[in-house]
């Protein structure tokens, strides 16, 4: 037995390993079923899936990658939160410090930024793929509606995050964005006042967008994602085949 094999054996036989994984590496159908069923993260999946649903060219992994991006954004976002204060006098210098002083700060910010744009893009693409497959038809009507809510939440997550660096891009993009929405009948002045916390983008706006960005929208998204995934199973798995 080679050294590596012996290390492998020792690890697999250790009490810690066996307390983590209750069965050996899943090689037969029964243990493969258990591997999925007994794992809290994997049991989101059924034990078996229909053949066409695992073809890359059916879903293009778009929903799954949207979710993966959501996870990446959560992790990188938490790291950024350690160094960021939502204050009109500090936010910008915090971003500068994140880029120049914080370990992997620049990389983290870059990944968070590009990941966010990519997520919006992928959610759009996912929606298109669902449409072209007619996957919104019964029994999946409601999951489509949940999806539209998720699209809205994704865009709002991106939009509220856009203000946080508190630079000229952020300030004016949010000024224009909120001006556009500020013309709702009933809604206009009060809505803008509530959203901005004032007549123009300022400290109140920054704090509000921050709270929405790191708390309200992520929580809502998590809830709707749970419903979305639950419904996929309850609606009989992935639609198709075409």
């Amino acid at each position, binding site marked *: 037995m080679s050294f590596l094999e012996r290390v492998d054996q020792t690890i697999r036989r250790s009490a810690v390993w066996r307390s983590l994984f209750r069965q050996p590496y*899943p090689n037969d159908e029964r243990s*493969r079923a258990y*591997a*999925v069923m007994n794992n809290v993260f*994997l049991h989101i*999946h059924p*034990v*078996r*899936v*229909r*053949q066409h649903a695992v073809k890359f060219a059916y879903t293009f*992994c778009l929903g*799954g*990658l949207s979710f*993966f*991006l959501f996870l*990446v954004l959560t992790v990188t976002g938490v790291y950024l939160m350690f160094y960021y204060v939502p204050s009109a006098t500090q936010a910008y210098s915090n*971003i500068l410090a994140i*880029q120049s002083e914080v370990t992997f700060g*620049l*990389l983290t*910010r*870059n*990944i*968070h930024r590009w990941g966010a*744009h*990519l997520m919006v893009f992928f959610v759009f693409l996912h929606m*298109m793929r669902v*449409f*072209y*497959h*007619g*996957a*919104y*038809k019964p029994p*999946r009507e409601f999951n*489509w509606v949940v999806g539209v*809510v998720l699209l*809205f939440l994704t865009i709002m997550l*991106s*939009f509220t995050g856009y203000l946080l*660096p508190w*630079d*000229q*891009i*952020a*300030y*004016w993009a949010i000024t*224009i*964005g909120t001006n*556009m*929405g500020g*013309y*709702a*009948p009933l809604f206009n002045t009060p809505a803008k006042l509530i959203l901005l916390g004032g007549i123009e*983008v*300022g400290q109140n706006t920054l704090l509000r967008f921050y709270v929405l960005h790191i708390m309200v929208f992520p929580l809502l998204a998590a809830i709707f994602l749970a419903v979305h995934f639950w419904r996929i199973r309850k609606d009989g798995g992935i*639609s*198709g085949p*075409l």
Partner: protein
Amino acid sequence: MADTSTPPERRVVLPVDPTRRTEIDKQRVPMSARPYRLLALVKQDAVVRVQKEPDDTVMTWPHLLSIEFLAAAMMSIFLLLLGLFVNAPLEELANGNVTPAVAKAPWYFLGLQELLAYFHPTVAGVLVPTFVLVGAAVIPYVDRGNPTATRPSERKTAVVLFTLFCILGLVLTFVGIFFRGPGYGFAIPYVNTPGLHFAL
């Protein structure tokens, strides 16, 4: 010396009055010998299943999970490279008194901002976005055609309408991104305006 170690714990299965034994009692075995649970009772339709439904399924592990893992890995590599080589934009400190020459909303709102150039703000900023979101949400309740008709060729109207709508949105966004310069006026990048006026 007497054996002082405690005897192994045993589960006692209480005997059931033979006259009242049910189907389940007959199958009863000690819990220790049965590491599974009763999830549901299914009424059997026939002793022999005459026709088994064709099984077109595969195991989730490895068939689905390996693909998911691969997709996540590729995406991670892509994001890592992107993050290493392309920096996120950052301009000067926000200043409400200095309006930049070109002020644009984030790209996903540029279609709307483009509409703002043609229509009243109520239309571009309120009616259209409301219509788009609500319109998208009610698609399944409007398209009440044959639910089994999912091929694009079987639902031409829906596909054509949706595609036209997507193209319209794409064109508007595209113009907003590339062909709008100072003061949000029409401009051809690199020709009559220096470079792109667009930040991600």
